[in-house]
């Protein structure tokens, strides 16, 4: 396969940036998208040019480091797939592939396709923890947890924090990410102690960086882990409850 890559080049955060086109010959359809970019960079290096910077780490779809806008879709055309797990067989010989970094006010571009997602870290820091007794390891299954709650928590915990939800959102809102990070703790018995404080703190931190949700549902479509919009609804419910809940009575369950 011969591919033309039209990729966003930007020297640094303050550079205006522009598209550059590169030819990538002899691409195997079994290559992953990032391997294709590696080949492209090899060619750039041997031509004495600066390779394109992009984020990547595990390359097996579980770390959330990679992620670019491919042909107008976050993580490219395949559903429930991170960029690293996207394969070149999804494209055809002679295709032009347009690649851009995530674009959101809270995700400034560091270089080329690499963006700064520290705003996500700020949200996690605001409440992504639970209180536990330290000391010896607790017995397994010491706290009874309904199967449904454990499953729901696991569904939320599947979020890898790649930022595709924000990238796909016309409002640059981070509702799907924040609601997943809230739900995987809030639905568990262990998460009840800080539940309403956590919800309030994480939501308000989110709002200081990101836009306002209008329930388009674009985030769910872009999500490589298919996190459900139900978590956003759950977060909305908990946030409103957090305003009215008498927290001194929280011990009553």
């Amino acid at each position: 396969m011969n591919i033309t890559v039209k990729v966003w080049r930007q020297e640094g955060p303050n550079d205006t940036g522009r598209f550059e086109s590169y030819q990538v010959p002899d691409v195997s359809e079994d290559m992953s998208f990032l391997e294709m970019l590696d080949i492209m960079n090899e060619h750039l290096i041997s031509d004495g040019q600066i390779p394109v910077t992009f984020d990547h780490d595990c390359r097996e779809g579980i770390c959330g480091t990679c992620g670019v806008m491919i042909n107008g879709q976050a993580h490219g055309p395949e559903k429930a797939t991170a960029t690293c797990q996207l394969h070149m067989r999804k494209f055809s010989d002679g295709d032009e592939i347009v690649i851009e970094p995530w674009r959101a006010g809270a995700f400034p571009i560091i270089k080329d396709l690499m963006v700064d997602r520290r705003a996500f870290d700020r949200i996690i820091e605001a409440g992504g923890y639970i209180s536990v007794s330290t000391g010896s390891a607790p017995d397994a299954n010491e706290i009874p947890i309904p199967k449904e709650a454990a499953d729901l928590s696991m569904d939320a915990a599947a979020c890898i924090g790649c930022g595709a939800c924000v990238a796909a959102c016309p409002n640059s809102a981070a509702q799907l990410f924040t609601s997943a990070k809230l739900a995987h703790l809030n639905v568990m018995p262990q998460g009840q102690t800080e539940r309403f404080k956590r919800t309030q703190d994480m939501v308000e931190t989110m709002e200081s960086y990101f836009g306002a949700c209008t329930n388009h549902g674009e985030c769910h479509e872009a999500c490589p882990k298919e996190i459900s919009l139900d978590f956003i609804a759950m977060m909305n419910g908990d946030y409103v409850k957090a305003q009215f809940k008498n927290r001194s009575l929280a011990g009553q369950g």
Partner: protein
Amino acid sequence: MAITDRGRSVGTVEPIRTRPKKALPPPLSLYQTAIGKKFVMALTGLGLIGFVIFHTLGNMKLYLGAEDINVYGESLRDLGGHLVPRTHILWLLRFGLIAMFALHIHSAYTLTMMSRASTALKYQQKQKFSAANFASRSMRWTGTIVLLYLIFHLADLTWGVTDDDWVRGDVYNNMIKSFQRPLVALIYIVANIALAIHLFHGVASMMTTLNLNRIKNLPQMAAGAVAAFILVGNLSFPIAIQAGLVEFDDEARQEVIDHAQGGEDDE
């Protein structure tokens, strides 16, 4: 999840807005945050949907004849019967509606501005949307059309400034005379299509915001049903009148005029 905060010294990510310094007591504190504003938008939206459905159902009395719809109009003014002075409850409802409209519009405006401030450079290629539909992306436009139309609609049928022959209390004939004008019928049809599009996303969005989506696809189904009902119900009026299926009733008009001259005319 990847730790993105290690070994990077390029620039900083600063919050674009700060949390409110002084939190108001609940429920006012809700309006200081985006999710709270969404909640207010959803609640006021729910109230306004209720009004729109009730309004359509009430107007369907048009098909039962002049007496039915005129009595319906009068009973709205006379809500509460002898317990409260005439039109007082109606005015209470009207002030409620005005407040709901104001909050709905203000929250929409401030949230839009918040999202604008959070968006950097737009994508330089065409973004492919797979879930966001025409309805969800045109909310601000359909909402504006409905608002502009609402002002015209009040002037046309509540204040009667667009027609010299308008008679207070003769709901039936006022409506027919108004919709017999092709331009008014057209404006009405366009505005109600905009309203239906607005509701098609609005109802689903409202249910998600109010955490009423436990049943799979319930918001989408409810939105489809409400939008379809409003579209079919409201478009039937100008179409029926333009087609001549419902016609001017001289007797009913005379009756309203006689009644107004005989009794008090306070509203």
